[in-house]
């Protein structure tokens, strides 16, 4: 064995010693630099997860608000804003929940806050209540008429456009602009108070549109008319034409 070692040329032994030193230094330096918990769960520092988990909370959460403000919760739970959590309008309030008197959450009172959600935008889903703030009681702050925790309109809206803004706008520039909504829809009395429980009716037959648009009808000169029996009899009218913006040529 010793003989074998001796037969290794000296330069190889030196190289081997240097290599061993490099490896040992590498091991020591790495052990010093790499944190103990690195690589325990994966290629990362386990402690980082706990550091991120212990960051400060800014929003208290709806459950926290409910612990004290049960009066407002009751008002809110029956109104249209029941799904809107307190901190949507009042801002982050974790500090308030810890020291209620020292930190007061904000309460938006200006007219420019509510339109963030309720200004009319064509991109918003239909059915979501929207207004055009420029023409909807200008200057008055929203809260003079609407209680924000239960925002029923102060009076039942007369116009369908109060809720069906998208449709009324499209219709207003269409050939059907002068038709009233109730020409085609039967609207139950209760619809304005409980819209989903009392849905308005929709026409069901080709003959309904035919009242104006069938050829044999001579009461409406200038109205585009078709032969009901011949004109695409397989379909009902609104499968091709959008009644609020009929795009016939």
């Amino acid at each position: 064995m010793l003989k074998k070692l001796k037969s290794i040329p000296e330069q190889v032994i030196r190289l081997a010693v240097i290599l061993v030193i490099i490896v040992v230094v590498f091991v020591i330096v790495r052990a010093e630099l790499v944190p103990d918990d690195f690589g325990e769960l994966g290629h990362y520092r386990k402690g980082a997860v706990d550091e991120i988990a212990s960051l400060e909370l800014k929003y208290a959460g709806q459950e926290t608000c409910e612990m004290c403000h049960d009066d407002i919760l009751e008002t809110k739970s029956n109104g249209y804003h029941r799904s809107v959590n307190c901190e949507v309008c009042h801002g982050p309030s974790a500090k308030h929940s810890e020291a209620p008197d020292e930190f007061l959450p904000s309460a938006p009172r200006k007219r420019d806050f509510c339109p963030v959600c309720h200004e009319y935008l064509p991109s918003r889903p239909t059915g979501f209540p929207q207004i055009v703030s420029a023409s909807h009681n200008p200057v008055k702050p929203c809260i003079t008429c609407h209680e924000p925790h239960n925002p029923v309109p102060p009076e039942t809206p007369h116009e369908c456009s109060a809720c069906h803004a998208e449709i009324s706008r499209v219709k207003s520039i269409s050939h059907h602009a002068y038709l009233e909504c109730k020409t085609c829809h039967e609207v139950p009395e209760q619809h304005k108070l409980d819209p989903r429980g009392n849905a308005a009716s929709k026409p069901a037959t080709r003959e309904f549109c035919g009242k104006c648009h069938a050829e044999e009808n001579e009461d409406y000169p200038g109205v585009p008319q078709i032969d009901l029996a011949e004109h695409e009899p397989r379909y009902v009218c609104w499968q091709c034409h959008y009644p609020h913006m009929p795009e016939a040529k």
Partner: protein
Amino acid sequence: MKKVIENSIERKAFFKLIFLSAFSIFLPKSLTAKNSSPEESPVQDENYNAYDHKWGMCIDIDKCIGCGRCANACKEENDVPREPFFFRTWVERYKIFGKGEVVIDSPNGGVDGFHNEHSERNPERSFFVPKLCNHCENPPCTQVCPVGATFKSVDGVILVDKDYCIGCSYCIQACPYGARYLHPVTKTAEKCTFCYHRLVNDKSPACVEVCPTQARIFGEMEKKSSPLVRFRRMEKIGVLKPALNTEPKVLYAHLDMEVK
């Protein structure tokens, strides 16, 4: 001839030595590794065991009204810089005109809400799409990190270790969803954490908390009953950029094909 054979044996021994010493590079890991059980939760909170959870989010595009409260709340909760190009979540407005023309805008990420633009053209379809880190099952961002500063935690949330991040921005380049940014002061990468500090306290992420129309549904991906699982069962679900096989854990209901 004899000498040659002797030489070749020595060479063999030399290579053996080289290989052995090369293997010693891998020694440190086995030397330093602790024998902690892998089931031990990385969070030091006795009420939260990370192994019991797999978080995900679903966004119902039909419900989003584009108020941008989520983007605002995210900035409040996570101290995201207020400049209009640092976002952990933001809202995009899609306007789809005929013939493949799509206009997407996101003024200040939607933090101030959206406003009408005075244009004469009516889009064929228009809607809002909230976006955030997709918390991919196969995250491209963690793979490129040279120092192990960003990772998928055991509950499926992609996190950044800000003490370990060297600010090289590779992950920002790698994210196909543009969900990361370099913090202008700390110069480290930051991203949505699903409000991890809220999750461990049994609270929902800030954006979910403030969404007035419940367009964001948050919950467990793999439990039998959770709001998210029920929603997935009831609705038609899509993900962003499915062809990349990132397997996002942020799902979208009623997703339009034009959404990229």
